């Protein structure tokens, strides 16, 4: 069985995001970029599934500019077997990403697709669900535990009311939550070996997939600065302010 795991190149989680001067987006030039942390968890889970003997091959996939190769190499250094980059300089929306992944799913026929539940840049949380709809594969989102049970998977999901356990039939898409696992560090010899692992680059045009966008970004702004706090005299004043000023109760 093959596993496809999605790895997105995003602004490093340690970097403070800054809006571009023309408000067209976030400044990404000359800032540190890394693998989306949720995707690291997806890579880790894929590797654990393979190490437990439940999969034969882990394919790390990214969609983005040529620099996304570095993100794929990081996944290869962690232990993925090969990589595929669908190269594009456009910022694609989740639907276009889901269509491109569907293209790869048709080609590779994986038993599992592991994706981060969302990327920390846009926080869209849509790609996995859309890919499920497009491909007809089962979906288990926000996974915090994945167990194999014959040709089925028992997945524990983190939902608002607590934990939900579901069974899904493979092929399936799993989107990973924070508590699923703790990603490994890449070992030095594996970082060196990653250079020699196959990495296929497909120009987005060659996929024949329509990636046109139905949305346009009007403006990106910094969140408003938080006003200074005040100390209230008593509970009555607190309730009054919550009700009449903040209008939250």
């Amino acid at each position, binding site marked *: 069985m093959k596993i496809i795991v999605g790895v997105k190149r995003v602004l490093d989680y*340690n970097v403070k995001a800054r809006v571009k001067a023309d408000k067209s987006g976030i400044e990404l*030039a*000359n800032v*540190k970029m890394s693998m989306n942390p949720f995707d690291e968890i997806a890579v880790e889970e894929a590797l654990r599934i393979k190490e437990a003997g439940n999969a034969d091959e882990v394919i790390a996939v990214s969609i983005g500019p040529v620099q996304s190769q*570095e993100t794929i*190499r*990081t996944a290869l*250094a962690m232990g993925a077997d090969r990589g595929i980059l669908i190269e594009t300089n456009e910022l694609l929306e989740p639907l276009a990403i889901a269509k491109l992944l569907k293209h790869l799913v048709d080609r590779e026929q994986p038993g599992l697709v592991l994706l981060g539940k969302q990327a920390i840049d846009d926080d869209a949380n849509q790609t996995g669900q859309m890919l499920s709809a497009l491909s007809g594969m089962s979906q288990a989102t926000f996974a915090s535990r994945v167990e194999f049970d014959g040709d089925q998977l028992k997945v524990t999901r983190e939902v608002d009311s607590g934990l939900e356990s579901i069974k899904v039939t493979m092929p399936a898409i799993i989107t990973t939550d924070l508590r699923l696992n703790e990603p490994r*560090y*890449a*070992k*030095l*010899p594996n*970082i*060196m070996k*990653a*250079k020699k692992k196959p990495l296929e680059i497909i120009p987005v045009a060659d996929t024949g997939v329509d990636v046109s966008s139905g949305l346009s970004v009007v403006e990106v702004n910094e969140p408003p600065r938080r006003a200074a706090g005040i100390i209230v005299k008593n509970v009555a004043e607190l309730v009054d302010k919550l009700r009449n000023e903040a209008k939250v109760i």
Partner: protein
Amino acid sequence: MTYVAPVKEIAFVLNQVVGLADIAELEGFEEATADLVEAILDESAKFTGEILAPLNSVGDQQGSQWKEGKVTTPDGWQEAYRQFIENGWGSLSFPPEFGGQGLPMCVSAAVQEMWHSANMSFGLCPLLTQGAVDAIDHHASDELKQRYLPKMVEGIWSGTMNLTEPQAGSDLAAVRTRAEPAGDHYLITGQKIYITYGEHDLTENIIHMVLARLPDAPAGVKGISLFIVPKFLVNEDGSPGERNDVHCVSIEHKLGIHASPTCVMSYGDNGGAIGYLVGKEHHGLAYMFTMMNQARHAVGVEGYGIAERAYQKAVGYARDRKQGNTLLGKDEDDQSIINHPDVRRILMSMRSTIEAMRGLGLACAAAFDVARRHPDSNVRERMQRRGELLTPLVKGWSTEMGVELCSLGVQVHGGMGYIEETGAAQMLRDARITTIYEGTTAIQANDLIGRKTARDGGRGMAELIADMRSTLAEIATLDDSHVKAILPRMESAIDAAESANTWLLSQNDATLPAAISVEFLMMHGRLAGGWMMARAALAAARLKQSAEADQAFLDARIILARYYAERTLPLVESSSTIILNSAGITIALDSAQL
């Protein structure tokens, strides 16, 4: 705040200043391409920042503990060490035939800086193993290599250097530990002190490299031999067997590096510890120098590594702490102490000196890399001379400045810096050993004036200065006023250093040079650091031509180089004046009058 490795700055020095691309052209170093090295630096940054750095203050507070011959490392250290070796960090530059990665020394030095910034007490264990591996690899028989190296390279076993005895510190001629021949091995008896990681609970075996005398040995340094003495004797199948007669009888209570156990080792309390001769009898000291050159460079890296941590802490505090009306703050929300000009001075001094030291440390390592692998024997010899000349500067100057910068780091914190809780004091306490072990600053200075300058008639120095002048000639062709402003400062500094060199080479007696040797070392450290900053500024000015270049980052390199030229290079001239005038007066007072 914890530690974030300056990956971008380190990669800049490797790629743009010391010529990693040229090193990756050399046979055996083909792997060391810029993208691979960056991937290594990134992963090392993650590991050191997330695993080693958080254990630094735990290590300081708990320290390693001795009880009945056993040493227990602080909470979390065993697990961190397990991960460290599992991820292969110990074997970076070791020979591939024994399981290492065979990467250049400059890459290994870049990674090691991060160990020491994150946690110097921890970094000492693999540092010592590295020295022992080098000595075995260069000088021991194939049989001994096969028996010990694979597990030491993997890090399952650690190594130590056993030189010092109570009466034999800087003067190793006084070593008394004895080795009696006993068939295919020797029986070692005696006591060694200050043995870093002589005993601990991180590895299943500890391989001691021990200096001792044979019964028929001539007196002095020509009668010392080097032995491998394992804590556990090694079985035929390579597993650790019987306990050898070597024991840790106590550990020292120290100013800093509390987690690094500094051991008193006793050999042969029950008849003699079994040891195996490395190389030939009576050649031990020369072999030990293989370890020491490597270790001296590594301690220099500690010097700027720990200063980098102190700098990060200081700059973090300066951004946070509000005090007084600042002269540089833009508005009332911008009144952190970082906006006081004098705090800027401290931070600029720390930052620029660290970058100069890092440049020198990596340039020295790169020189050794070229010396090892270049096809042209003339280049090899020249770069070997260069590496050896720079080693005492890296060790002596970077550690002296490391202590000074860690002290400045405390100063930025004001009263809070003096409080242990803040953590700035630990850097200063930990840094303090670096000017002492692996040869004090005076020992480095003697090496510089004697072996490295006087012995070759100043040839290595002349080559170094010629290379500096050619950098200046390149800068002169630039159209950048900031970078060009470095020129007059560098030129005056070089002239001043040359006067001091000429004076030194004209001396027939060692007494006067010995009185100014440390000043001579500091002068050349500052000058060589200035050269590295000039090279960084030159590279930055060229890269700036590209529109996609990170202009802010490159501008910062140029401003830091300029600051260094204005604030540090004039000290080269005052050092030269001191050297030319103060030797006689230094020793004018009778010792009884002191």
